[in-house]
């Protein structure tokens, strides 16, 4: 609360730094000068596009240059058009399914894996490397790797299920499997990514607390439930929010695996966004959709910042 008030007061340009000795003036200029390069980039590629997208989403002016136009104001008409579109409903349901499955599954797996490699097992370095490597791969590269798993003719998955007597499936092209296939691949990749955060969290745990627990006779399960998880509560929550925000912006692997989401089997928000803009040329509609995406991401990240603020206060 206090922080918010200071922020508001500072933005109004009220009393700031009155004790800055007689060098005050050059320092004022210097501060802005040093931040200027970063500020120019942020304004040009974040603030300006945000404003443009917002204006464009409230106007109608198809097929023209979105930067130099004078569209007519139509209120929320673009948003209503979007919500009335049955494909958009499908896209939203795909997006929510994708987020709702990949995030919880990968977080639980990541936590479990982090616990596994946090111990003092033999060959721990190699073990970690084997678990971590998907985290650093490009999503596109991870996607092409999994094309070889899902391929209809020679893919590993169809070979494995043929040993079990199950007929080969068209994993990436069928409405039944496409979204699932994309989700499994994503879980494989992001589990490794989140595992890194959890492992870092586990390694920063205070040893004395765990020692004290052991002396008090807590077994591993009890110390996990009553000590480790509560101590990592903020990390867990924060990683969850980051994971959600990332999952809503998924594009790369779906584009590679299903070529533009297939006939909408796996199309999500961002893929649909690109399609509306560049295949249909309807930038206003696409921008309305961008704003919806921004609102979702913004609410998630604001939540994350509240938590990290809380965490910082706890740590201090």
């Amino acid at each position, binding site marked *: 609360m206090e922080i918010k008030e200071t922020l508001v007061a500072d*933005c109004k340009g009220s009393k700031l730094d009155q004790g800055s000795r007689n060098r005050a003036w050059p320092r004022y200029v210097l501060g*802005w000068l040093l931040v200027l390069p970063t500020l120019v980039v942020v304004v040009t*590629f974040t603030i300006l596009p945000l404003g443009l997208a917002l204006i464009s989403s409230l106007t109608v002016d198809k097929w023209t240059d979105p930067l130099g136009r004078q569209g007519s104001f139509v209120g929320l008409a673009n948003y209503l058009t979007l919500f009335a579109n049955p494909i958009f409903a499908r896209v939203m349901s795909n997006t929510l399914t994708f987020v709702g499955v990949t995030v919880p599954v990968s977080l639980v797996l990541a936590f479990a894996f982090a616990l596994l490699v946090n111990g003092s097992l033999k060959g721990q370095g190699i073990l970690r490397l084997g678990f971590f490597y998907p985290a650093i791969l490009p999503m596109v590269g991870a996607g092409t790797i999994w094309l*070889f798993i899902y391929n209809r003719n*020679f893919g590993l998955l169809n070979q494995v299920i043929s040993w079990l007597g199950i007929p080969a499936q068209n994993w990436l092209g069928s409405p039944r499997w496409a979204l699932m296939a994309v989700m499994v691949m994503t879980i494989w990749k992001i589990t490794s990514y989140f595992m890194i*955060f959890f492992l*870092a969290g586990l390694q920063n745990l205070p040893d004395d607390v765990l020692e004290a627990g052991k002396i008090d006779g807590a077994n591993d399960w009890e110390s996990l439930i009553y000590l480790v998880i509560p101590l990592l509560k903020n990390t867990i929550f924060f990683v969850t929010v980051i994971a959600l925000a990332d999952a809503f912006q998924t594009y790369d692997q779906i584009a590679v695996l299903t070529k533009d989401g297939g006939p909408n089997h796996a199309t999500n928000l961002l893929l649909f966004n690109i399609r509306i803009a560049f295949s249909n040329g309807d930038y206003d509609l696409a921008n309305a959709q961008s704003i919806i995406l921004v609102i979702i*991401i913004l609410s998630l990240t604001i939540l994350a910042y509240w938590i990290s603020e809380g965490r910082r206060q706890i740590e201090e």
Partner: protein
Amino acid sequence: MSAVFLIIKITAKMLAQRWYTFRRSHGILFVLSWGLMLLWLVPLIWIVAISFRPPEISLGRGSSLFAGTLSWANYARAWRILAPSYANTLIMAFGTLAVQLVTITLAGYAFARLRFPGQRCLFIILLIQIMIPITALIIPNFFIIRKLGLYDTVLAVMVPYFGSAFGVFLMRQTFRGVPIELEEAARIDGANLLQILVYIYIPSGIPGLLAFSFASIIYRWNDFLLPLLVTADKAAPLSVRLSILAASEGGIQWPQLAAATVLVISPLVVLFAILQKQFVRGFSYSGLK
């Protein structure tokens, strides 16, 4: 109903207890860890095996894993296609990083050590960059980059990242740990701002700058949606070129695609294997902001 829950709860607890006493022996844990890790490795092993397949033996005939002989032919072909993009990606990753290191050091110092009007306001404006990634506003950004005349140049994928709010905040935290007495002593000795930054702040900021560098290189190396839209043939980075190979109409050259994938990912994997600790630190900084 509640009785059922109770039974489930007790059973789960018993299983968990048993599991954790078993864990003491480390035997099952060892097997489980290695088993899962090998499962995680399967996709990589599979694609590496296919990448060495002689192009003339078509896939789907005989064993997919091993066709009898190994061949470098796929790599030679993939390299011919990827080479220009390799240069593009290297320029993008390291060029962006070079500029970022300068901008985040300057702005990080300003936020850590200077007080000026509008500072908090600026801070919030920069925060918006972390909250709303470029991909979320990809369509207006596409037009802005085109308007700036950057379309299909390597700069198109670099300039939007020249300023990094995350990097600025990271350096602000790092520089705040530097004793201010050092700076004051240097000022008395007549040092100017550049000397103060180079001799006092940057040396103590090395761990932060390193962590930032690792994360930055990975993110730029793997960047896809922005380069897909703002580059064409001339400036396409590896990720875009790879996606084109994977989508070629009229039949994908599968073993060649496998080799191309290995060529794109191997620098990162090798680097990661050598510098695992630094990468992990870079990642855990960046994700947790």
